[in-house]
């Protein structure tokens, strides 16, 4: 009961309403401010100085104490100002493998005319990244979160904070940005060789794309391997062209869930498939992926690799692609 109430109160106080899409403007109601431990010590020192000034009747002591006290109050306004009215938008997060660190890009936009210094971003209050945001500028900062499991990783509640200028106050704002990062399964360690490629039926009937024989040039498409770009042609200013090859036989490499040993668990299988995807891509093979309930057709290149890895990442989850 108490926990529920507290949770409710926290949500109300910090305006936590779940992930928000679009731009978050750090208005007054969103920036919170409290003295830091240094701020408390500062106050204690001021109190000592005030007592000393009263006792020794030090007029200049009074002046110093009050000047520093006023400066402390001033610093609070400065700290608040350093955060207020920033506009925050979530950016992209490149997919990573489980076990790696996912970097969520956060755009901090300062449309005002004051320089913002040392704005920190953290997700766990331990590791923080600091940026300065000059006037009328948008700066991208990133929070790194360790991706433990495959699937969709959400950054959760991020904290944007600052202690500028004097470190006496800590102003912060909770950001619940609608961001996600696809986490691929961690590839199994190399060992299991790629499954044998099957030759398609009706040999010699069609000539599919292969690796061995050069057959001509075509326009470059995004995702084509850089190894196949006709760099000589590019050097002659003919634009980017991709060399095309034909296989002597159309080999079809199917990375098949059901081809894996029976005793393997789901995650092990996904790991192994991820390893194969990487290996097949590295070998510049054309490959397809068969998962229970999903099949990715034969293709090659970066796009195919990413498509397959994403299918592996999202296997069995309700998450849809971002």
């Amino acid at each position, binding site marked *: 009961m108490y926990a529920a109430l507290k949770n409710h109160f926290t949500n109300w106080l910090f305006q936590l309403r779940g992930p928000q899409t679009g731009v978050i403007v750090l208005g007054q109601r969103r920036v919170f401010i409290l003295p830091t431990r240094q701020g408390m010590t500062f106050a204690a020192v001021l109190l000592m100085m005030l007592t000393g*000034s009263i006792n020794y009747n030090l*007029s*200049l002591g009074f002046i110093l104490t*009050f*000047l520093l006290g006023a400066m402390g109050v001033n610093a609070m306004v400065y700290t608040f100002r350093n955060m207020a009215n920033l506009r925050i938008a979530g950016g992209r997060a490149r997919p990573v493998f489980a076990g790696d660190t996912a970097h969520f890009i956060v755009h901090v936009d300062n449309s005002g*005319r004051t320089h913002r210094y*040392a704005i920190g971003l953290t997700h766990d209050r331990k590791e923080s990244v600091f940026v300065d945001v000059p006037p009328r500028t948008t700066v991208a900062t990133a929070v790194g979160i360790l991706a433990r499991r495959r699937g969709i990783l959400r950054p959760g509640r991020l904290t944007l904070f600052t202690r*500028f200028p004097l470190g006496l106050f800590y102003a912060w704002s909770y950001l619940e940005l609608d961001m996600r990062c696809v986490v691929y399964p961690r590839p199994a360690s190399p060992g299991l060789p790629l499954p044998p490629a099957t030759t398609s039926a009706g040999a010699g009937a069609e000539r599919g794309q292969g690796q061995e024989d050069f057959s001509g040039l075509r326009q470059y498409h995004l995702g084509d391997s850089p190894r196949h770009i006709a760099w000589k042609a590019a050097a002659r200013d003919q634009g980017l062209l991709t060399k095309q090859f034909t296989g002597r036989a159309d080999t079809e490499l199917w990375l098949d869930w059901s081809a894996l040993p029976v005793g393997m668990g789901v995650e092990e299988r996904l790991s192994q498939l991820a390893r194969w995807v990487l290996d097949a891509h590295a070998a510049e093979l054309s490959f397809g992926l068969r998962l229970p309930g999903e099949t990715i057709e034969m293709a090659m290149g970066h796009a195919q690799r990413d498509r397959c890895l994403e299918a592996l990442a999202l296997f069995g989850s309700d998450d849809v692609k971002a």
Partner: protein
Amino acid sequence: MTDFKQPLALRHVLWLTVSLAMVAAPHAWRVPWWVIALVATLAAWRAYVSYARLPLPSRWLLLAIVIIATIGIYLHYRTIFGRDAGVALLVLMLGLKLLEMRSLRDAMLLILLGYFLVITNFLYSQTIPTALYMLACVWVITATMLTLHHARDEPPFHRQLRVSGVLLAQSVPLMLVLFLLFPRVSGPLWGLPQDAFAGVSGLSETMTPGSVSNLILSDAVAFRVRFDSAIPQPKHLYWRGPVMTDFDGVSWSASRFLYGTPEFTASGTPVTYEVTLEPHNKRWMFALDLPAKTVPRALTGADFQIRSFDPVANRVRYDMASFLDYTYGAGESPAALRRALRLPPGFNPRAVALGRSLRQKSADDRALVREVLAMFRNQNFFYTLSPPPLGQHSVDDFLFGTRSGFCEYYASAFAVLMRAAGIPSRIVTGYLGGEVNQLGNYLIVRQADAHAWTEVWFRDTGWVRVDPTAAVSPLRVESGISAAVPRSDPLPLLVRGDFELLRQLRFTWDLMANTWNQWVLGYTPERQRRLLTSVGIDDATWYLLTMLMLSLAAVIVIVLSAFMLRRLKARVRDPARIAYLKFCEKLRAKGIPREPAEGPLDYARRLARVRPDLAAAVAAITQLYVALRYGAHASGAALREFQQRVSRFTA
């Protein structure tokens, strides 16, 4: 550098060291030399550690240094408490903390220690130069603090100085409100350490040959006086201080207690004035002969000594009135008169014999006084600041030997002769004269104006002032000390008034110092009450003061916040854009807002679809806007027409 655990960069260490050295510098003359040497070594060591990226020394080593140095301080001061020892310890800790400073957290602690060290300087000096220097220190410390809290791209230090200057300047209004309205209590909250007022000069309760002439060498201000009317003539400016009746053969001393009540008869109108007395840590308060008014928290005795209840530890101000034409003490008690005749046996036999022989020659007290004064005037007596030393029979040596001396020599010799001749006499110490500051129209009385004279008692008129110095050196009374002593005698520069420019500078400076004293250092509970009365608040209670202070502070903080937060949002400067945004706002109020990604033309097309009735007006406005914003020739007339159309537009 906003991570609390990150090691400090070299430049941070350097700036910290520099700012702390600035604050600690004035203490360098106050603490033992080896503390300074130790702390300088520690600071240099710290800088080298940062420079060469070495590990910091172990805590055990530092602990050993702490213990040894603390013992050293104890041996030097015989205590580790009190002002001087406390400051020495603080300076020492500062140096050690530098070597123990690993991260931002430690650096912040040092910064706070630095601020605290500023206030310890005020225990020794609160003059204008000290205040300015300390302000500079606070400025640099604050800039260092700013530097510590920047992210990686750190602006150069002069920028930090500017920002910290702005920060401090913006704090001044709030500081003033707090300073003026913070409820003041007078007096210490607990006992002050013994050494709190070491080195404060002033008249003491005893007078030996040489004690006044030591004071003459100081140009420190004793008190300042503002007269309500014209300043009286120099010959009346006898500022009465401790009255000394008891003579033990070497020194005269004032009685520890006051007796009787002040009674006098006077004619004429009294002069009224206000005295601002510098702290001298004794109980004396000074007034012109003859004080006719009581001072709050002080008593006046039958000998017209004014004594404060407590030693004057702070600058005090009091109103006073004096009669210049008076008689008093005709009905003096026999006990007091007996005391004023007592001479210690076995001292100054020749002087005593001279006094007795004078008595035999003349029965008239007044004639006798005249004769002694004539002796001083006509025989070879000199008035000098550097008299030869006197032996055990100081008066004999002076009268019959050296014959040169300063006012206390004459006063002492005169009083001894009078007592030997059977005339009750005593010594009054105080100040004579003063210097008029034309700029501020007040009188400055310095320690250099210290003086000693005598009072003798006649049966008919009571106590009468006789100044034997005046017999030897009339100039001393008429023109002040600098005219009276020979040029070769050492006198403080400020007391000699040789150069006109120097004089002017001196007066300007003293005026500033006086204003500073009156308004900054002398801002006492009384001054606070007076200030409040002048704005119409008569009896300010603590509660009222606090409420007033807090509400004014709140107003200042709100105004400041509004001022600081005004530049946060993007400001639209283009008048065409302002008008267009107004137009959009009108439509938004009607529920047709412009989408973020919608250009003016797209918006107009959509509006024409949903509100065909507005199509014509919208089209005209959009066309004008596009022409003004993106067209090649934007005329003032087109802008005016656009603005008019927008203001006429209703959805």
